[in-house]
């Protein structure tokens, strides 16, 4: 705070006094050296203020002030102040250097198949100093299912951001999502999963231990196998009451052992999807 006070004072005074002059570049590039030319003679004090930078040095008027590369690493507006008998200031803008990294956000990480506008991605180019590159750049988005290309689009960054949105595909599996800018690239994966079970069907038979009931291979409406572990609820109703088993799908099929000695009606459901009813006669 104590150091900033004279600097601020100098900036204010510089608008009132103008005994010497300097010429700052209209713009500079982050991480590259720049020069500021000065007029006049004698000694002066030079101040540089910018994002994350505050520097003071003695300079000779009439010569060029060298701005080092490490002083200009952060993009943004900089102030140069030159003080001799009076002070003079000038501002210039440091822009990001060329892209050196690509940040790529893809959402969601899992998506049911066949959903419109369900997959989106955002790419942001950054230079080597982690400055967002605001100049328009062309980013190529590429989606692959296995080795088959399912989506491709080139998009120009606007205010440092390029994006896409697309539907999930019909088949379950991993969707590879690539973004590239020049020789930079980033890769993400979206898991496309089966949707709700469709045409849930069961079959069953009496055994010594009760009724063994199992589903046919459980698939969604697009024919994708519903993932193992998905819960299928079997309900058997007979004269003794109701019996239920929540069984997970294993190797594509859910099965359960139900105790129901009398004539029994068995129903099946998984989430919001209902299946067929099965009627099994009483134990002989």
């Amino acid at each position, binding site marked *: 705070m104590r150091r900033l006070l004279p600097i601020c004072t100098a900036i204010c005074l510089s608008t009132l006094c103008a005994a010497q002059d300097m010429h700052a570049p209209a713009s500079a590039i982050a991480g590259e050296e720049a020069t500021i030319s000065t007029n006049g003679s004698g000694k002066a004090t030079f101040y540089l203020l910018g994002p994350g930078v505050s520097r003071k040095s003695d300079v000779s008027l009439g010569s060029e002030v060298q701005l080092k590369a490490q002083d200009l690493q952060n993009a943004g507006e900089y102030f140069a102040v030159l003080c001799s008998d009076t002070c003079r200031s000038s501002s210039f803008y440091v822009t990001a250097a060329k892209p050196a990294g690509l940040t790529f956000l*893809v959402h969601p990480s899992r998506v049911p198949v066949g959903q419109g506008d369900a997959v989106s991605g955002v790419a942001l180019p950054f230079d080597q100093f982690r400055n967002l590159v605001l100049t328009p750049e062309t980013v190529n988005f590429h989606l692959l299912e296995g080795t088959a290309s399912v989506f491709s689009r080139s998009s120009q960054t606007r205010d440092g951001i390029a994006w896409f949105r697309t539907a999930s595909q019909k088949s379950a599996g991993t969707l590879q999502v690539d973004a590239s800018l020049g020789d930079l690239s980033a890769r993400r994966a979206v898991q496309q999963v089966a949707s709700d079970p469709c045409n849930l069907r069961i079959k069953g038979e009496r055994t010594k231990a009760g009724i063994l009931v199992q589903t046919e291979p459980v698939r969604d409406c697009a024919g994708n196998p519903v993932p193992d572990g998905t819960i299928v609820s079997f309900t058997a109703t007979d004269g003794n009451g109701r*019996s239920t*088993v929540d069984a997970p799908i294993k190797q594509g099929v859910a099965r359960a052992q139900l105790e129901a000695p009398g004539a029994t009606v068995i129903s099946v459901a998984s989430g919001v999807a209902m299946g067929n009813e099965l009627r099994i006669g009483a134990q002989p």
Partner: protein
Amino acid sequence: MKFTLPIILVAVTAGLMTLALFGAGHSSGTVGIAAGSAVFSTKASTPEQGLNNLLADVQRRNWDRAYSALSTTSAGDRQSFIQDWTGSDGSLRSFSSLEGFQARPLHATNDDAQMRVRLHWTTPVGPIEDVRDFHLIREANTWKVAWPKMQISSVPAQIIPVTYLRWDLVSGSGSDEWGSKNVDAPHVRIISMNAVDSAEGAVVMGEVVNEDTIPAFVNVNAALVDGAGKAIDDESSFDKIDHVLLPKQVTPYRIDFPNINLKNVKNVRMDVKATLVPASADPVIGVMNQKVVSDVQGKSILQGDLMNESGQTVNIPHVIASFYDNNGKVIWVSDGYVNRALLPQSGQPFAVEIPKSLAGKVQSFHVVVNQYSLGRS
């Protein structure tokens, strides 16, 4: 002056000690003991004394004297008698102690009597009450309990093939780049919610479904808001929910707000939180022979049998049931812990209570089984 405070403190302490000495016997929190049941009589000249002697020995875990004092007509052996009281296989009973009891006669003649006892257990999941009938016989002028033969589950040695299904959680490795490690939280949804007043306070209940293809650890929170938009109270479902939901699984939840009346509540804010957890699809527990009946005390209960269809022991089964009216609306959620462990390929009975005021409205129900197994999270 400087002695005033110590004198007051001593007087208050003495007063509290006197109150504790004479007041404890009338405390309603220790009903069974207060009834004089924990006092051992040298000669059991009445059925009450005979039963009290047995239960006093059980409380003190004096198994030798308890077993030797049983009627000669008792059918069980010593090991099964002890196991009946102490539990086994890491069951809830094996972590419980008999805190007290209340006995009342059902009928009595000169030579035999039937007693009904409310047993008050302290357990890690809170106090549990158990109702049990005892048959007593007079033998040589001493009343003794005739211990029935207990059905203790035993499992023959066998190999049960299990297609083991498990989800592991892998944190991304490699670069720490922004966006490179994101895995979305599971997608869960509250599919029903109902708020009612009960004798103990307001209750918010309903059901939650895991709509995702991965397991979810779920917790439901609710905040009650008054007419001015100010939060009155917020609570969570705590153990009244099956926290680990497999894909497409539905669980009931219940959130209790003790001593709060819904007439002061303008709005209920619901919040369901789901996180990705490693989980296993085993064990599978069937819920057989579910029926709404009246128990020996005239209460409406949903009873049935749990059947462990897998190859691993479930130490503490926990049953949660949602009850629906004829419109399919959830009108109550009850839960109950099962005292005995659920051994592989074997069953255990369960029962959960339905409030008397709602028993007539129950048209349907849905039961889920939460399970705690030692050595597994």
